[in-house]
Structure formats: C-alpha cells, structure tokens
C-alpha cells in the first residue's frame, strides 16, 4: 500500500529526514517511535503534503501512485489521512460544516453522490459515539477553544467520518489521560479493516498496549535505526532510546 524509498526532506534548508525506507502493507499497523526531534512529525507531514517541507530525494508510492506528485487534497481524496500532532484551530467554520464538506469532497472524488445536512447528521450519530463525543461539538468551530484531549478526539472523529485507507496518527496519545487514550484506541481499532493500514507515531510505548502494531520502527536523526516486532516497543520502554540511538552513532 505504501512504499517509502530513501526519503530525504528538509525544512528551511535544514535536512531533517535523511533516507527513510519503509513499506506498509494493507491490514498492517506500524508504529514509528523515536525521541523528540527525531523527525517523526516531519515524516508524517511529508506524507500528508505539507508545503513547508521540501523533499530533496527519494520517492513514495501509495497504491502504486506517486504520492509526492499529488496535492494534499488529492492524497486525502485517495484515502490518506493524517491525525495532526497539533490540530489546527479554525474559528468561524463549524465542525459540522467542515466535516460535511470534507465527507462530500471525498464522495465526489469517488463518484458518489453528496449527502445533505440532514442525512449527514445520521452519518455522524454513530461516529460521535465511537469517540464518545457530544453532538453539541458539531456546532462549535473546528478545534477552536478545544482542550488538548478534545482536539485529539476530534481528529479521530474526522478519521471515523472519512474512513481513510492509510491513517497516520501523529502522537494522538500525547496529552491524553488513560480514559481518553482508551477511547481513542478503541476508535482506531474499530476502524481497522483488512484493506486499510495505520501508522501510529508515538513517543511512548503506552498507546501500543491498546493498538497493537505488527511492526515497530525507531526513528533517530532522520533515519530508521531499528525495526522489529511489537516486542521492540517494550524493549525500548525498558532500555530507553539511548539504547538504539547509541547504536546508530
């Protein structure tokens, strides 16, 4: 589904990603771990198409298509979804309007009919339950004035509405208490299907107790320095990042 080859990226002329290779197959969950500043969010943002990041070398294929040649909205319409580490506040645009617009753009891209506001409310009902959110939040502006936890849940709500093929969750666990963490993990697990895939970016092992990865990768200094099965996460937790980053040096 996703194939990243020798990906290099820089921001403001500073090289951040220095040769990433990663393959994700349908049905898989991959965890990307690593210390702060190792380039995890950069990788996530590059995959989503953030314009500030410049890809200086390498290639990325998504379902056989050249992902880097696609606009961010084309990537989304093709089923790529990034849950932002820092979701953006958009005062003045209601969550309901935003979600419905996004939902309809995706439907249009797939040649399906748009849904009207009333039908959309029906769609929303069980998606809201999935992330344990009140429908009153639909009338609030996108993320504006949301608590940290609400923002993260809102990202998962968007994911639940858009039902991506490739979901990238960037530190969706950080700042969540254990109950919220369970809700988020439950949401992600419910949305898992054999034909989609998830990349879970996290700093801590904690989330991986709830979302069990098939593969774990450790990112350090812009490179994947170690990959392994789900036990690698536990090993990292016990030994600390120095264990692998030291090995990288």
């Amino acid at each position, binding site marked *: 589904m996703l194939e990243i080859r020798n990906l290099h990226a820089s921001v403001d002329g500073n090289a951040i990603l220095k040769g990433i290779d990663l393959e994700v197959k349908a049905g898989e969950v991959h965890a990307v771990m690593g210390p702060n500043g190792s380039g995890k969010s950069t990788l996530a943002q590059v995959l*989503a*198409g*953030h*314009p*500030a990041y410049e890809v200086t070398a390498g290639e990325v294929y998504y379902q056989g298509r050249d992902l880097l040649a696609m*606009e*961010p*909205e084309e*990537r*989304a*319409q093709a089923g790529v*979804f*990034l849950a*932002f580490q820092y*979701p*953006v506040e*958009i*005062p*003045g*645009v209601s969550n309901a*309007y*935003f979600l419905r*617009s*996004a939902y309809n*753009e*995706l439907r249009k*891209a797939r040649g399906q009919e748009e849904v009207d506001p009333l039908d959309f409310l029906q769609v929303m009902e069980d998606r809201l339950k999935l992330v344990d959110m009140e429908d009153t939040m639909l009338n609030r*502006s996108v993320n504006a004035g949301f608590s940290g936890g609400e923002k993260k849940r809102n990202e998962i709500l*968007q994911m639940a509405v*858009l039902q991506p093929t490739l979901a990238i969750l960037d530190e969706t666990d950080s700042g969540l208490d254990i109950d919220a963490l369970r809700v988020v993990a439950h949401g992600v697990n419910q949305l898992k299907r054999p034909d989609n895939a998830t990349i879970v970016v996290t700093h801590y092992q904690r989330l991986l107790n709830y979302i069990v990865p098939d593969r774990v990768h450790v990112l350090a200094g812009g490179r994947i320095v170690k990959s392994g099965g789900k036990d690698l996460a536990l090993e990292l937790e016990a030994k600390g990042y120095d264990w692998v980053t030291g090995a990288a040096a």
Partner: protein
Amino acid sequence: MTQPYLADFETFSSNGGGAGPDWLPPVRRAALARFAALGFPTPRNEDWHFTSVAAIAESEFHPLPVSSGDVKPEDLAPFLFGRGDWPTFVFVNGRYAPELSAADNLPLGVRVMHLARAWRDAPDVLERHLSKIATFDEHSFTALNTAFMSDGTLVHVAKDVQADAPIHILHVVDPIAARVVMHPRHLLVVDRQASARVIESYVSLGNARYFTNAVTEIALGEGAHLAHYKIQRESQRAFHVGTTEVRQPRDSKYASFSFATGAALSRTNIYTTLEGEGAEVWMNGLYMVDGEQHVDHQTRIEHAAPNCASHEVYKGILGGASHGVFNGKVFVRPIAQKTDGKQENNNLLLSDKARIDTKPQLEIFADDVKCTHGATVGKLDALSLFYMKSRGLPAEVARRLLIYAFAADVLERLEVAEVRDALEDLTLARFTRMDEGAETAESAESAGAIRV
C-alpha cells in the same frame, strides 16, 4: 472642479430646485457656497489623508433632470433578501420610482414617504432635523448633497411603536446612468421608546461610471432603538461617498452595519454622538474589495454623556491591488465618565499588492472610563489551508471557507436573519478567483496575524 456643480445648481434652482418650504432655498444656497469655498477635500486634509478624491473632482458628473431608466420589478429580486413583502422604497438612478416601491403594508404609527411629499406632509419633522444633524460647515460632500437634495426618504416611527419589519431603501443604478451624480438624502426619525430597522442599499445593474453622494440623518428619541444596515454594492466603476450622522439621547440604542464591496472608490462616514446617559451604539462593518478598488470607512463615536457604551468591530478583506482605509475615532469628553468603549479593526490581505491603512484613534478626556482598541493585519493562514486540504477540501474551497470564517463573527452580529444570510452568501462568493489564490499560497507561507 467645483464649477460644473455650481452651473448645474443654477439650472436646478431655475427648474424649481426640488421645491420645498421657504426655509429651504437659503439653506441650499448656503450649502452651495460652503461647497464652493471648501472645494473637494485633498490629502492635506487629515480626514482624507489616505483617500484621494481626485478621480471624482476631475470627472464631470451631472444630475438627471428627469426620471429615467428601464428597471423592471424582476431586476430588483436579487437585492430584496427574498422579502419583497418588506416596505421597500426604490430609487432608480437617484430618482424616486413609485411604480417599483411598495409601502402600503406599514404598521400604524410608521410613516415612510418620499422627500418631495414630506416637504408638504411632514414639514415640521424636516425643519426640526434636516441639515441640523449632518451639518455641512466642515464637510464639502455633505454641503454638496444639501444644495441638491430632492430625492430621498423620510422614515418616521411614532413613539412606542415597534416596527419589526425592516424598511428597505433601495438605490438602483442601471447601465445607462453614465456620468450621473445622485444626492440621496434620507431622514430617519425614531421617537421615544419606538424601534425600527432600516436597510439602505446601493446597488448597480451594470457597470456604469457614476457618482453617489448620499447623506442620511438619524434622530432617535429617548429609549429608541434603530438597527441600520448600509449595503454598498455599487458598480466597480462607480464612486460612492456616503455620510450617516446620528444623535443619540438617553437610553437610545443604535446598531449600525456597513457592508461595502462595490465601487471603484468608496468612502463611508458614520458619526454618532451619545448625548444622553445610557445611550449605546454598535458600529460594525465588513468591507471586501479587490482589483483596483479603494474602500474607506471613517467612523466617529462621540461620548458626550456619562454611562454610555460603544462597541465597534470592522473587518476588511482585501485582494488584488486594492486599498482599504479604516479610521475609527472615539472621543470621550470630560463629562463622559464610566464610558465603556471597545473598538477593533481586523484586516485580511489576500495578496501582496493589497494594502490597508488602519488608524484607530482614541481620545479620552475623562478619567474613569474603560476603553480598548486594536487593529490587526494578517494573511490567510497557510497552516489552516493545509489542514483543510489534508481533509480533502480543494484549495479553492479551503480558501473561500477561510475567508468566510474570517468575516463570520462580524456577520453574526446582524440581527435580521435574511440580511445576515444574504451577506454571508455574498461573502462566500466574493473571492472565487484562482489567480489571486495562487499568489496567496506563496505569500501566506509566513502566515499569522500581525498586530500593528
């Protein structure tokens, strides 16, 4: 420069000069003399520092001597907010058009009439207020309007009457009105404890180059409440100067909204004086221009009594190589203790060539007051655009939504839902051109609002 107006005034006078009571001709003469003495304002005049009216002064515009125009009722439909049932007074090319107007469904105690009839039927009200609220000593455009005023509306709401249905004063200019000058003059009188809503629209059916020079005077009684919306959608080649002046006695409430999106050059003045304790004013506005347009607002809120409040929010969206000006004056006189004054002006620049001069001006001569003001100038936030696109919204949709979002909170302040909905639609549809969007995406990289 002023000469063609002086010559036209002689023709106007000898043709009956709009008729009227005996006190009127001397007022007209005095106003004309004042206009001749003042001339058109130049940028040396502090109030016109950022707006040159040379294009008006150097063009020749003439009044239409007779009614003209070929406007059909169906042409008006787009401008009626879907409410053809509201009392509507229509002016075509500056002249009252009774056949297009409908004012038979007025509630008891509400009088709406053409100025020509008001000279006869409501002479006392006119004599008491007209040219007494909007004085012309220092304002040459008001002086010019006063000399020529003959088409306009008197709205008079008697005490205690609640006139809920908005009264719509609609100015339409058709495509043939090239080089025409119009001097609409309106007087809105809302007596003690009465309330009313008045919409003043200036719209164009074509792309003619003409000049609207409007003046509206507003006299409120104690405890009266007026919502007053001015909607300026003139032709992109037109010139528009409009002045509204208000007097607010004790406990009166005045809620003003100025929506300005048309004209090559527009200048809107809105002035109020809070003369009695407990008076309150809301002055809000939204201006949206692009291309080579120039849009200027000057507001003045004079706190002349204690315990009054003023709330002002103006937002501007500027694309292309347009130029916006906002000058908001708030004066707090020594007597005006316990004044509560808030003023804000926020601007969104959609291109690197667009420009805004914003000048909030707070002058406080009382010591026990609570006043704040601020201005911001920003660009579309690149991160917000990316966020929306990452959810599948096309760049153009994301951009429009973000522009709309910028304006949303000021539009929400409109209390008449039909007007609010219409202006929201106009806002969503205003900036749809991708050429400007491309430019924006680049320039918005270093996004974020700057405080000035």
